[in-house]
Structure formats: structure tokens, C-alpha cells
């Protein structure tokens, strides 16, 4: 009889006012490979973080091997045999394979030193079991990424886990390496280990998993045996929802004249030959999965990262952008995706943050700041964007996420840009502020500003954009005009199923 190793019942998780999971159920059987499938933000990682004790506070309950568990940390979960392998490698590149595998649980000699001999021997055993050819004495950084990933798996295996959770394990692997990984996954399955496989890549999901559990907007949509599923079905399960009224579309049509053109731009880390045109007063949406290269393309345009090749044209004239300062001069403003790391200076006041890009405009006698003018400009944007704050001298760290985002928006608008690039502008802000940000975006476009809008939430891009470009692995793989918008077609381009 098949038994459920894990049963999660009615799991609910809030972050502040934002509901990440609502009454989600998940069963994991012994020796089963389950795929958690869903769009960005569907709640896959959150659910796994509940299971592994990363988030000790949640609603609902789950059982592991029949008894109710409530893990306070990953250590507790690990103790019960639940191990997570993260998307980014959590290894020390300067240590050897064996040292990495036994990091934190090194075998000791009688004298209390590390027992290298035993460590190497035991590592070798696991490596052989999986049919791999890795020398445990090699320094990790000399090995290819795929091999390092295998080391990460072996590291999880030494504690005899019952469940392995793999969060997009194939994202940095070649197709040959993926095959190798699948061989190992099948071996683990034969040994009775259950695997939760998180991936966006449908071909892989179809090939390796036994069952697919689809999540959407933090709720269960369907659990389906893989043999009964197909690409079309999975895509429609992932996206199938109505456009919410959050996103009211503009009334005035965009202009037809081309304002900005990107021609054959390539650059690090993986942008290949990207070309597109942006019209005056247009909202151009960029859809795609996380890691598709949308942010990276914008960084090349903005000069945050140096491009290898390609050209930019503004009003037909070639633009030379080497660093962000050049982009600002050319009237390109960028609201980054990571607000805390890339957009705000937390300890500084709203005023000082807001005028950060326009020091040349608030200049007096060549080197001094005209604080009066700074105040006028700041209070103008506080009114226009209805930023809620007792004073413009308040440190920005004291504001809510939504209000911080409005300050960042104000900072970008203060340069009086021709083009405004918004990278995930509503991430991490509550629904009310979201609607407000969208209203502002629409208003700005109506006033003739050209906007590039990146969002991983399809309804958001579809709700606001006049046109959508889809990216996949560093290339633009689809273009949709507003009358052709179709969630499934866009998702197809994003996961590149033809």
C-alpha cells in the first residue's frame, strides 16, 4: 500500500498584509517525484519553506510519517530527513569535494582533528553509489557547475534524507548534464527517497516527475498524474485566471513615432542579440520567467552593466551609454527591481533620496546644493504621488514599501525622463499601493512618457501594457500587440514551447 510520507493540510502564510498561501494541501508519497508547478509568486518556494522550517509561523498543519510536526528551523526538518537543495549553490568553492560534503558534520579522529581519510572514503562511497566519476580530493572550484550540483546533492544524501526538495536544479545545467541529473534522481527514487522538483521547464517536468501539483496565487489548483498531463493543460492550469480589475487600461492610444530603438544588443551575463522599438507614449511590457534576462537587458540599456555589442538610438540619433550617468543625461530613468539594494539609501531622508539624480539641476554657485529648490521639488512629488509621510526630512527607511517605491518613482521622474524603465515596480508592496502605482503609470503614459514595464505577474503586464515582448533565456522570443494578448500564448513564449 502506498503511504503518504508528508501530508500538508490547509497551509496558510501571510507576509504582513500579503497572503502568500491560502489553504494549500500537499501530499508526498514515499519514493515519488512530485513537481510543484506555478508562475513566479504562485507560492511554491513559500510552501517548501514552511515544510523545511524556514518559516516557522503559518496556519494549518502538516504531518511527517504520520505525526504532526512543527519545525522551528531547517535543522529540525533536516533531523527528520527533509533536505532542501537551493537554486544557488551553497558550497565553499575553495574546499575539496569531500570537505564540502561533510561541512558541518566532519568526522573526527580520536585526537579531535578532522578525519580526512574517513571523509574521503565515505564521500567516495556515495559518489560510486550514484555512478559518478568525481575525485573527492579535488577542489570544488575546479569542477564544472553540474558536478558541483551533484556534490550539493551528495551533501544532502549523507544524512539519509527521506525527502529532497530541489528548487530549479536544472537552471544552470546543459541538456547533457540534465540527463545525468535525471539518472541520479531515478536512482534516489528507487532507494525510496521522495523528491519535490520545482521547475518551470515543462519538458523536464513531463520527463522526470510522477505527479504535478499546480499552484496559482497561493492556492491549490490541481494535482494531476504526469502521464495524464500535457503541455497545453499544464500551461492553462498555471495561468488560467481572469484579469483583475486592479489594472485599468489607459484610454488614450500610444503614439506611432519611434522614440527609442535597441539594435542587436548583447552583453553579460546572457543577453543575445536583443532588438526592439519603443514608441512615444507607449507602455511596453516585458514578460518572462524570473531569470529570463529582462532585468539584465535593462541594465545594459541603462549602462549599469557594460554591453558587448549593439546600438541604441533615441529619436534616430545614436546614443553612447557607458554608465548610468550617461543614461540619466539622455533622459532614461530606471526604477530597479531590488529597492533596498539598488534604489534607496535607507538612512537618508526622502528629500535627499528624491533629488539624488538631479544634483545638476539643484546646483547653486557651481558646487553647492540649493536646498530651497530641493524642498520645492520634493514637496511637489510628495503631492503628485501622494507619498504618505509626516515630513520630507524623514529617513526613507521609516516609510512603508509602497511609499518608498513612490519616492523612487519620484526620483526617476525628477530627471524629467523621455523613457521610464520600471523593473517589477509593484514587488513587495500591498494591493492598495499596487493599484496606485498602476494608476500613476497609466497617467504618465497618457502625458506622453514612454514606459518599459517589467513584471513577472502576467496580469500586471497584460493589464497595463500596449504591447508585450516576451523573453526567454536572454533572447526576445515573442511580441504581442494589445489585441493579441493571450495568457497562454505569452506563457508559451516565456517557457518556449512551440
Amino acid at each position: 500500500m502506498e503511504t503518504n510520507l508528508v501530508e500538508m493540510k490547509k497551509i496558510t502564510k501571510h507576509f504582513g498584509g500579503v497572503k502568500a498561501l491560502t489553504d494549500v494541501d500537499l501530499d508526498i508519497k514515499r519514493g515519488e517525484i512530485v513537481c510543484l508547478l506555478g508562475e513566479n509568486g504562485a507560492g511554491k518556494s513559500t510552501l517548501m519553506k514552511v515544510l523545511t522550517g524556514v518559516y516557522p509561523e503559518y496556519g494549518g498543519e502538516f504531518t511527517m510519517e504520520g505525526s504532526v510536526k512543527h519545525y522551528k528551523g531547517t535543522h529540525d526538518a533536516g533531523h527528520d530527513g527533509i533536505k532542501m537543495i537551493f537554486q544557488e549553490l551553497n558550497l565553499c568553492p575553495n574546499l575539496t569535494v569531500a570537505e564540502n560534503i561533510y561541512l558541518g558534520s566532519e568526522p573526527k579522529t580520536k585526537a579531535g582533528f578532522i578525519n580526512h581519510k574517513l571523509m574521503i572514503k565515505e564521500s567516495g562511497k556515495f559518489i560510486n553509489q550514484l555512478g559518478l566519476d568525481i575525485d573527492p580530493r579535488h577542489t570544488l572550484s575546479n569542477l564544472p557547475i553540474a558536478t558541483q550540483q551533484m556534490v550539493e546533492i551528495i551533501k544532502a544524501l549523507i544524512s539519509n534524507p527521506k525527502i529532497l526538495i530541489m528548487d530549479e536544479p536544472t537552471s544552470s545545467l546543459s541538456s547533457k548534464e540534465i540527463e545525468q541529473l535525471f539518472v541520479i534522481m531515478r536512482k534516489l527514487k528507487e532507494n525510496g527517497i521522495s523528491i519535490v522538483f520545482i521547475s518551470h521547464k515543462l519538458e523536464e517536468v513531463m520527463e522526470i516527475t510522477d505527479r504535478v501539483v499546480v499552484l496559482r496565487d497561493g492556492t491549490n489548483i490541481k494535482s494531476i498524474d504526469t502521464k495524464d498531463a500535457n503541455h497545453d493543460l499544464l500551461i492553462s492550469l498555471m495561468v488560467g485566471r481572469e484579469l483583475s480589475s486592479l489594472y485599468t487600461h489607459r484610454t488614450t492610444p500610444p503614439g506611432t513615432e519611434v522614440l527609442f530603438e535597441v539594435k542587436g544588443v548583447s552583453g553579460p551575463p546572457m543577453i543575445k542579440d536583443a532588438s526592439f522599438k519603443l514608441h512615444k507614449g507607449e507602455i511596453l511590457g516585458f514578460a518572462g520567467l524570473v531569470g529570463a534576462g529582462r532585468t539584465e537587458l535593462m541594465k545594459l540599456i541603462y549602462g549599469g552593466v557594460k554591453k558587448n555589442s549593439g546600438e541604441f538610438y533615441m529619436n534616430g540619433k545614436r546614443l553612447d551609454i557607458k554608465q548610468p550617468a550617461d543614461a540619466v543625461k539622455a533622459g532614461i530613468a530606471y526604477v530597479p527591481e531590488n529597492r533596498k539594494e539598488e534604489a534607496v539609501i535607507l538612512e537618508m531622508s526622502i528629500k535627499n533620496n528624491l533629488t539624488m539624480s538631479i544634483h545638476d539641476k539643484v546646483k547653486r554657485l557651481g558646487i553647492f546644493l540649493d536646498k530651497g529648490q530641493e524642498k520645492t521639488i520634493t514637496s511637489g512629488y510628495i503631492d503628485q504621488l501622494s507619498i504618505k509621510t509626516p515630513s520630507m526630512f524623514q529617513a526613507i527607511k521609516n516609510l512603508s514599501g509602497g511609499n518608498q517605491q513612490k519616492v523612487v518613482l519620484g526620483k526617476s521622474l525628477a530627471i524629467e525622463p523621455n523613457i521610464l524603465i520600471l523593473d517589477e515596480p509593484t514587488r513587495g508592496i500591498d494591493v492598495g499601493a499596487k493599484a496606485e502605482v498602476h494608476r500613476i503609470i497609466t497617467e504618465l503614459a497618457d502625458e506622453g512618457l514612454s514606459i518599459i514595464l517589467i513584471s513577472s505577474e502576467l496580469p500586471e503586464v497584460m493589464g497595463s501594457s500596449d504591447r508585450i515582448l516576451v523573453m526567454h533565456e536572454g533572447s526576445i522570443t515573442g511580441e504581442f500587440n494589445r489585441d493579441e494578448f493571450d495568457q497562454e500564448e505569452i506563457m508559451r513564449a516565456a517557457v518556449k514551447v512551440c
Partner: protein
Amino acid sequence: MKEKSILKKMGSFKESAILLALILIMLVITIIAPKFMSGRNLYLVARQVSYVVIAGLGVFFIILTGGIDLSVGSVIALAGVVTGKCMELGVNPLLAILFGLIAGAFIGLINGYLVSYVGVAAFIVTLGMMSMARGAVWIITKGWPVSKIDPGFIAFGQGSFMGIPTSVIIMIIIAIISYIILNKTIFGRRVLAIGGNEEATRLSGVDVKKVKLQTYVIGALFASITGILLVARFSSAQSTAGEGWEMDAIAAAVIGGTSLAGGSGTVLGLIIGGAIMGVIRNGLVLMKVSVYWQTFVMGTIIIIAAIVDVMKNRRSN
């Protein structure tokens, strides 16, 4: 009632805690060694503090961006020796001072270029420069003091105005300039912004590399001023001048509440920080504490200041 509100106002100053510490330290020293409060002694302490504070204000801007400069002490010696050598060669004293400043600023330019544009860690660049500049001093002087110094310059440097030593007056002028730079200019705003979040500042369109380079030039320039003042103080340019002063300069900033991570610090805090160190050092001498213990105590104070800084940050987070 009125007294209370004044006290309250005092409490709201960022520097009130260390100012209070300074006053307490002075009180304790005065009780044990009443000579401390004599006019002559205060004059000497103030003069000594001024040298450290001027150099400290230079490294202050570097620290505010999140950088560090360990070559301060060597730049002090180099600027002094270049000035002294020029005077020995009969160059006009004003020109000699100018050459000293240029020599120092040039070191800052190299530091800044390597840190900002080449991307070498500031700690390593300035550690190497500490040796190179000191080596240059020895090459120039072969270890001998340069003692043919213009008498007018000595008289000026050792003199005073209304009972205040020249070097203290120069310190006050530089402190005022530093205050204005930090609080009123675009450059100052950008320095604080870089220390607060360098990537966000860069993405805002600020030429971060240029600003950082400029801080190293300012740092070396201020250190050079100290170096030139020391030539007047000793009536000769010494190849050992400023040895270990980089630590005093950095310590003045840290004791004064400047965050080594960058982004926050005040000019007044730095001056008080420098004064605390000068007063304690002088007090230990007056209280006849052994030289060995003096060094020990100075180190303890720096560590205490750093701990206080960490606690403060932890509480505000």
C-alpha cells in the same frame, strides 16, 4: 524648568554623549592632576589635538564613503620633507608649502585612482602607499632631518593669535570648510550617499568613481597640511614625522561616531574624538602613568568606542 529644556536640547545633539565623555574625562584628570587645567598645558594639548584633527578630517571623507586610508602618516612626513627640502634649496616659503601640498595630493591621487578605477581594495592600496611614501621620505632625506627652515615660516607656525595657537586656528578653518563641504555641497551629499548605498548611488547616475577618487585627494591634502605644520612646530622636517598617525586619525573619526561602514559621521564628532584622545594622552602623562600603559589605554579606548558604535547600530535596527 528652563534648565531642563536646555538639557533636553543638549541630549538631542548627536555628539552629546561623547561631549559628555570628554568633559567627564577632563574632570577626572583635573581632580587627579590639577596642572591639567593650567593655561600652558591646555595650549599644548590643543595644539597637539589640532594636528591629529586636521589629518583626521581628511581621512573622514574617505571613511564616509566606506573606504580607508592607511597612508596618512607617511603623507604627513612626505609633505613636510618636500616643503623642508624646498626651503633648504632656497625656494620661496609659500611656493615650498605649495610644493609640499602638491606632493601630498599626488599620493592621494594615486591612492584614489587605484581604489576607484583599478578596483584594488583600499586597505591594500594605502597599506602599500604607507610604505612607498615613507620610503620616498627616506630616499629624499637619507634619514637626516631637514633643518634649514625659513625662520618666518617657523615663527608663523609656532605663533598664536589672541592666545590661540596658529595650528588650532587652521584646524578651525579646515573644520568649517569640511562642515560646509559635507553639508552644503553636492560632493558632500554624494560622499554620504556612496557610504549609505554605493550601488544605488551609481544607478542614480552619480559618477561614483570620481567622487571616491576626490575623497582620497582631499584626505592626502589635509594630511599634508598637518605635515607642513609639524615642520614649523619642530623647526625641521623629520623623516619619522607622523609615524602611526594614520591610526590616530582613524581613531579620532571612530571615537567621534563616524561609522567605518560609511554613510554617517559628523565634523564636530571627529573634533571631539580627536580631543578625547589628546586629553587622555596628556592626562596619562600628567598622572605619571608609564608610557607602556599609555599605549595600552589608547587602544582600549578605541575598542570601547567601536563597541559603543556597534551597540548603537544594533539598537537602531
